[in-house]
């Protein structure tokens, strides 16, 4: 029993390990430095601890809200409305060859 001021502080359980961070970084296609891995392990852990407050709410019969707009996705006719302009589309390409985007070799 906790008396007056007698309650001990128990640190909350750690949710995120550095292995979790490495796994998620691979999913997210992010190369992280060891320093970034360490920093993200700590900050994601504290953010997720804070988010645990959501579990105080009973949401058993509550519908999820994905979107506030009540309209269904609208349909349109399948017609081209813009003129083809390869140069405009390729102008920002980091590497191009004529009308093509250049990428690293993916099949030997």
């Amino acid at each position, binding site marked *: 029993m906790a008396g007056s001021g007698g309650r001990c502080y128990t640190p909350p359980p750690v949710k*995120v390990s550095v292995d*979790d*961070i490495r*796994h*998620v*970084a*691979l*999913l*997210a*296609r*992010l*190369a*992280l430095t060891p320093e*970034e891995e360490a*920093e*993200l392990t700590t*900050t*994601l852990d*504290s*953010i*997720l601890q*804070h*988010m645990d*407050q*959501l*579990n105080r*709410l009973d*949401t058993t019969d*509550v*519908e*999820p*809200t*994905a*979107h*506030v*707009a009540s*309209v269904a*996705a*609208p349909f*349109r006719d399948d017609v081209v409305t813009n003129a083809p*302009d390869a140069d*405009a*589309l390729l*102008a*920002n*390409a*980091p*590497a191009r060859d004529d009308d093509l*985007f250049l*990428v*690293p*070799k*993916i099949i030997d």
Partner: protein
Amino acid sequence: MLTDLTIAAAAERLRRGDLSAVELTRAALDRIAATDSAIHAFLTVTADEALAQAAAVDAERKTGHDRGPLAGIPIAVKDVIATKGVRTTAASKILADFVPPYDATVTRRLRDAGAVIVGKVNCDEFAMGSSNENSAFALTRNPWDLDRVPGGSSGGSAAAVAARQAFASLGTDTGGSIRLPAGYTGIVGMKPTYGRVSRFGVIAYASSLDQVGPMARDVTDCALVLQALAGHDPRDSTSVDRPVPDYGAAVARGADEGARGLRIALPREYFGGGMQPEVEAAVRAAAATFTSGGADVQDASLPHTEYAVSCYYVLAPAEASSNLARYDGIRYGLRAPADGLLDLYRKSRAAGFGPEVKRRIMLGTYVLSSGYYDAYYLKAQKVRTLIRRDFERVFADADVIVTPVAPTTAFRIGEKTADPLQMYLSDVFMISVNLAGLPGIVVPCGVDAAGMPIGLQIVGPPFGEEVVLRAARAFEAATSWHQLRPPELAEGKPPK
């Protein structure tokens, strides 16, 4: 000074012919040149294009064609909004050299209204932040105190308007990014209802929350810009096809009738706690102003308010992690030297994204990953429903809800960068409005002992922009806070 004019006043002089769009644009460009080395609001100044646009407006006006109140008015655009032929970076290294091949719908609507785009303004990288400190390129400073943040993420949009560099600006608001910086810099900023303004050509952050809106020096000017932006766009599937009301008429009603008959709710969860006492006092005084103007002000409850930040920081990063998957170094954007395709993705994204963007991508990927989806993402979507219902209940008996903008006025540069969670909590009074998709405006309602502006938020039901504008104008007409300006600029000398 010409740059002190409101849009409404400048438009009247342009119409009368005793001021030209070129003169007005030169005044804005001169003001930017004189002050931006201190403020750092702009990432790109489009002086030549702006003067050419202004000259075209003047020439057109001579032929008798008047495009309306924005014709010839210098406006700044947040750098997450595409501008054809003008670099658009999202304040990120990954888009440092990106030049859009098309205009966003809101950019085109501004151009169609004859507005003169003077440049692209700074923001937090990909609009992720509350202080503007997450920009990869510049640290925008608050014109009221250069040691303080202007708020974020639309901090450049806010600072440019407060510093009289532009007459209005466009911002975007996903979790308070228009309203928080408007409050921190003593200007008026409005987030319209989700679906009211097109996001086509706006670099996506969290698509179920993002909305574009105006920032200006008073409510009338804000409504003038909103009028140009609002309306259905077939190119944004979330844009709602319903008529656009006459916002000017709503503003006029606020001036003519004041707050008479308005039912105003004051949610108790938005007061107390760690709030700066001057902020609470100013908002309570604003409520009293409404009461003496004939409004019926009642206490109300939004019981799930305390869950909004957690809810948002599950949902927004989840959506961001998906939206930002497109930055892969292939079709546009930064590409890092790499060995193979996977390595190219990982190294390009590592080199291109800053720390906060990486943090949100990681958080979002985590909450969506196998085993955590139900516990975080689905749970947060259900809590979002509870937050929406809170507002529906209050709006059954109220026309608008009035709240503070933030627990404190603008904080100091560097004060919250070490602790992301503390930074996230700056948005505590902003975020519910995005989760519920509601319109909200921020107007100045006081200053604290340090002379920093205090903002008042007025929130309406879905598509309730008219009653929000009416209430905001009624408050403005009864007070003079909107006439205050940053002190070092008032003395006519450039900031330190």
